[in-house]
């Protein structure tokens, strides 16, 4: 027998393993987050939230997922079938790519690349495409309005988001997320948030808008547009949008952790647990906002962006460049 030596690059192994692990990570976390969101909402409103299925209602989301999978998938007459079903998949798939460059720990990442940040920003644009397709292809006027909102909101808010991220990149001089993490120290005052509070604020606000979270959840504002872009989706079509929303929350919180909060570094026992803790803290804050605030109006949302975030982001960037 001739032994052929197949040289498998270590990078590829890492990538494949990473994608599998990420799929599990995203799926598990999304399910936990749905549960967490309902618990947070419940407790803020002084009710228990889910508590019947499993201990503390932990299995409630799993039961809901099973129900959603079992439900009939319907499509309105006149809808574009291909795009209609493509949209939810498109909403969920890019999330894996987004996670790849994120360093969860010192050695815990699936793809170490110099342009990791650029990759994330590039693929983040897919989200809006899926919302747009969903709203447009469902042959529903509410969906169309939701899609229109989603596009103008996402496109507008990507600009200050980029500006905020850019300020960090300038400071660190790198797009490599691992390098950015290591550029910060383990203690809170060594984190970028201490140096760049404004950038963090802008980033976080834009992240809320990019992920369509309250108070910026206009594309699906249910008191105005019934359910916006996903009005016509049933079963797992809706479920995928739902999961994608939570997956996106994890992504933006992870990026915020890396960029501003020192990533996996912590004062004691640095490691992936610090990373997770910070991500969850940010996500909890997002949930807290959602259950506290009314929704802003569409023109106010854009005004906020063009009149406040973009000028502030630019000013912040200028100052950063000047200092660096």
């Amino acid at each position, binding site marked *: 027998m001739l032994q052929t030596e197949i040289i498998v690059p270590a990078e590829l192994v890492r990538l494949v393993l990473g994608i599998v692990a990420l799929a599990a990570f995203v799926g598990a976390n999304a399910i936990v987050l749905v549960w967490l969101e309902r618990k947070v909402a419940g*407790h*803020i*409103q*002084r009710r*228990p939230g889910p508590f019947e299925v499993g201990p503390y209602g932990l299995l409630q989301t799993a039961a809901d997922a099973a129900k959603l999978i079992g439900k009939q998938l319907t499509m309105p007459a006149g809808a574009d079938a291909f795009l209609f079903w493509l949209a939810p998949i498109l909403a969920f798939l890019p999330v894996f790519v987004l996670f790849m460059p994120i360093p969860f720990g010192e050695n815990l990442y699936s793809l170490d690349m110099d342009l990791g940040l650029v990759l994330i920003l590039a693929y983040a644009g897919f989200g809006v495409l899926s919302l747009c397709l969903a709203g447009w292809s469902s042959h529903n006027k509410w969906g169309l309005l939701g899609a229109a909102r989603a596009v103008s909101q996402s496109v507008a808010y990507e600009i200050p988001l980029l500006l905020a991220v850019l300020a960090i990149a300038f400071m660190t001089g790198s797009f490599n997320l691992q390098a950015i993490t290591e550029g910060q120290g383990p203690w809170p005052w060594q984190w970028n948030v201490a140096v760049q509070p404004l950038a963090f604020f802008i980033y976080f606000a834009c992240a809320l808008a990019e992920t369509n979270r309250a108070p910026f959840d206009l594309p699906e504002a249910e008191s105005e547009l019934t359910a916006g872009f996903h009005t016509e989706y049933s079963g797992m079509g809706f479920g995928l949008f739902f999961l994608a929303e939570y997956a996106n929350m994890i992504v933006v919180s992870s990026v915020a952790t890396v960029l501003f909060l020192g990533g996996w570094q912590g004062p004691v026992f640095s490691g992936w647990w610090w990373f997770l803790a910070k991500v969850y803290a940010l996500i909890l804050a997002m949930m807290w*906002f959602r259950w506290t605030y009314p929704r802003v109006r569409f023109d106010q949302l854009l005004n906020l962006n063009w009149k*406040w975030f973009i000028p502030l982001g630019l000013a912040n960037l200028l100052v950063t460049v000047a200092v660096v």
Partner: protein
Amino acid sequence: MTLFKEFQSALKGLWSLAVGLKVTGREFARPQLTVHYPRKVVDNIVTYRGHIELVGKPKEPAVPKCITCMMCATVCPSGCISIKKFPPPKVAPAAEGEEAKPKAKPVKTPKAFNLNYNTCSLCGLCVQNCPVDSLRFSTDVYLAGVSRADFEYDLMARLAAQAEAVAKAKAPAEATAGAKPGEGGE
């Protein structure tokens, strides 16, 4: 200066958002208010006025005080009460020949007293207008059924069952009978 004012109002706005977070945060930490129904029940059912039920005579708890005056059935806006009287005591005429007293006392208690709770609007006019206080509100709130027939009550049977239960428990009527409306509560 307008720019300064703009910033000032923006900061004020941000502060109001922080205050909002404080409020929800405080509520988050406070204990829950929900009553977990099947395990716990609310404690104010005693003042609730559910569907009506018959009141028995003090001496014979299984026999209602009702004198079949039909007032409740007439006053009911939705006609959900139906009462059957016993036929008037007209014992068959002379042919039978026995000592059928021509002036037997008419039976006043109802033969049947049915309530169709499906159409009841809980206005309480029947109870209010009953001349002999033979009606009262039950405090049944935990009602569920799979068909309309589940809410067509035979109140005579209900009274008999209640009387039996009371007799069995040998306890004062307080245990099963709802408290008088307008009293009790927290």
